[in-house]
């Protein structure tokens, strides 16, 4: 039984399939076969995504602690949620998170879009500069956090040195100062992730047909009008998508901030995920931290849904 040269791979697989299997498969409908193929993936998703989610919701109503396996699990109703929502500290962590997310988004959109507009002009060496700009995005956040602690070092760091070139203010303690620490993490995140926004904006800019600008030229539109009436609406879906991805990522931000400030000074930069980790894996208050995780999940999910609806409207 030799393969004929004209046979497709499907034909050859069909011929190689044992008769018993063929008999069984022939009895199945197309839908059943489709289910047969996707069921392993669905089972995997159920096992690693849906089940932990349901389990977390269950634990959030208990006093469970993962470091005390023998201790009976007690149902505590909504006590964990009441404690969380009534805690001044939790609102402080959420406030720190919101400050970080909002400012990083605003600054990164402005700089990212500007860079994309610049790179889109296709000047000499544009590809080289695009690659250079993308480098920070390729680094590990933990590494970035660690080396920025050196750059921010008030006495020997280059950041303080550069500031003192312009204003002689002495050593600038970015990480230890209550006023500057929230900005220190925003600066590093902006340095690292603006290229991502730029990249998506660039994709948007390159998708705008040239004839729109030619028509605008004929209508004697100025540069601002071209940007406002053609460029911005056309790249808005790309921009919003970039903000959605980065917003969700920054809401969960952990590694970079831990390396940079450990949440300090005090709890000034203790974003929600750092506190969640402390509650879950340092204090081992599993039930309580599950409730916090559920609150964060609902927040991100809710905000994400509202945003996606807005994004769809913009697309239409």
């Amino acid at each position, binding site marked *: 039984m030799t393969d004929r040269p004209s046979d497709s791979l499907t034909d050859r697989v069909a011929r190689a399939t044992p008769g018993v299997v063929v008999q069984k498969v022939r009895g199945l409908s197309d839908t059943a076969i489709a289910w047969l193929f996707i069921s392993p993936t669905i089972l995997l998703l159920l096992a690693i995504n849906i089940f932990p989610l349901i389990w977390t919701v269950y634990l959030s109503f208990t*006093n469970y602690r*993962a*470091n*005390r*396996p*023998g201790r009976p699990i007690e149902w505590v109703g909504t006590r964990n949620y009441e404690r969380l929502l009534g805690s001044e*500290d939790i609102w402080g962590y959420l406030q720190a998170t919101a400050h970080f997310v909002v400012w990083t988004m605003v600054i990164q959109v402005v700089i990212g879009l500007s860079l994309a507009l610049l790179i889109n002009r296709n000047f000499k060496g544009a590809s080289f500069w695009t690659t250079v700009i993308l480098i920070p995005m390729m680094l590990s956040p933990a590494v970035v956090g660690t080396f920025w602690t050196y750059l921010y*070092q*008030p*006495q020997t760091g280059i950041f303080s040195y550069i500031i003192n070139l312009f204003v002689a203010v*002495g*050593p600038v*303690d970015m*990480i*230890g*100062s*209550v006023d500057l620490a929230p900005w220190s993490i925003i600066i590093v995140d902006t340095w690292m992730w603006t290229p991502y926004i730029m990249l998506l904006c660039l994709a948007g800019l390159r998708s705008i047909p040239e004839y729109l600008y030619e028509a605008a030229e004929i209508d004697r539109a100025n540069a601002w009008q071209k940007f406002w009436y053609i460029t911005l609406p056309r790249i808005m879906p790309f921009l919003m998508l970039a903000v959605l991805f980065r917003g969700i990522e920054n809401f969960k931000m952990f590694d970079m901030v*831990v390396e940079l*400030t*450990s*949440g*300090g*000074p*005090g*709890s*000034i930069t203790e974003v929600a995920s750092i506190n969640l980790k*402390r509650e879950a*894996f*340092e*204090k*081992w*208050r599993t039930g309580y931290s599950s409730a916090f995780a559920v609150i964060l999940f609902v927040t991100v999910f809710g905000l994400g849904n509202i945003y996606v609806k807005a994004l769809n409207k913009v697309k239409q």
Partner: protein
Amino acid sequence: MRRFGACLAAAALSVTAVTAMSTQEVQAQEKELTLCWAAWDPANALAQLGKDFTAETGIAMNYEFVPWTNFADRFINELNSGGKLCDLLIGDSQWIGGSATYGHYIKLNDFFEKEGISMDDFAPATVHAYSTWPKGTPNYWALPAMGDALGWVYRKDWFARPELREEFKAKYGHELEVPKNWTEVKHIGEFFQGREIDGKKVYGLGIYTERGSEGITMGVTAAMYSWGFEYENPDKPYDMPGYVNSPHAAEALEFYKSLYDCCTPPGHSDAYMVANLDAYKSGQVAMQMNWFAFFPGIAKDEDVGGDKSGFFVNPSQKVAASTLGGQGISVVAYSDKKDMALEYIKWFAKSDVQKKWWSLGGYSCHVDVLNDPNFPNTAPFAADFLKAMDGVKDFWQEPTYAELLQSMQKRVHDYVVADQGTAQEALDKLVVDWTEVFEDDGKL
């Protein structure tokens, strides 16, 4: 046929050789122990000491040393997950409550009795702190391994300069000497802050301010203990209001903040052992607080060692007291090699091994070492170490210690470094946090 026979013999020989090698490997693997500890100077000394154990018993020693910043996270998670990585663990004194309660360590009483190891051979303060749970009862979960307390180091050479001494006395009305109390610590800190010495700008003090693990708590309690701080009502366990947030506890905390504000180098807002060591060794600060464990390294340091540095015990304000460091060595209950691990403990408890341990740079807790009349002369900090160990106080050693510690880290860092609220408010909030922890744990 002869050829076939030769091949068969060769194959049989190969199989035998491979089997023999595997058996040897398995035996070698079985005859080894893994000891887990923090990555610091004394750990290197212990690895050096361990060679004697291997020579004596044929048991190879592996070491898992983790930096202090991840030490607690790494090994507490290991214990909680029932991991078999560590056969022996030199865990922090505060872990003993949890490790005994949740069965992470094996109880050593029967073993000590069988092998004739007496806890009377070890300094009482170290046995109490590193070995017993519940506290003060003769239930032993570890052998005191590394005595330690928080002490201070100062630039003896700077203090000896006549022009500085003169200026200091004119300003503060007392000599520029080892401070007798915390007020004098502040005087010295203020005096050196921003001063130029040998053409270089220097600062006053390196104190603990670290947020992530236990740093600022260890530093703040050094001051609070000197002000007579108590964790609870001595007659009523877990009764904290009026003790944890007493007026003198608030005064001590306020004083510590004033040290941070007046006398630390720029950027010293998240500093623990290594940051203080770096600041001191690079000639940036006149004094630093740090664990005695680091003092042998400082005494030998090329830049600041020898006559350039002096050592002193934590100064008193109202009472003489020092923050306890140090650890006991325990056998992990999940280990498959508990017998060999116990053999190591038996060996480590020997008087001559303990003497060598001290000579290599480890801090022995054995009375044969500490009560030796010549002990205070064996190192420039030895006498102060004895003094410190006489008045050590430790943080809670409860099973919930991690929660208690995290709450304190937050409250005191919020106040000292982030300038939020008052000292009294910080301690009042701490009482609320700790009460909640003990209520959850069923102790209140």
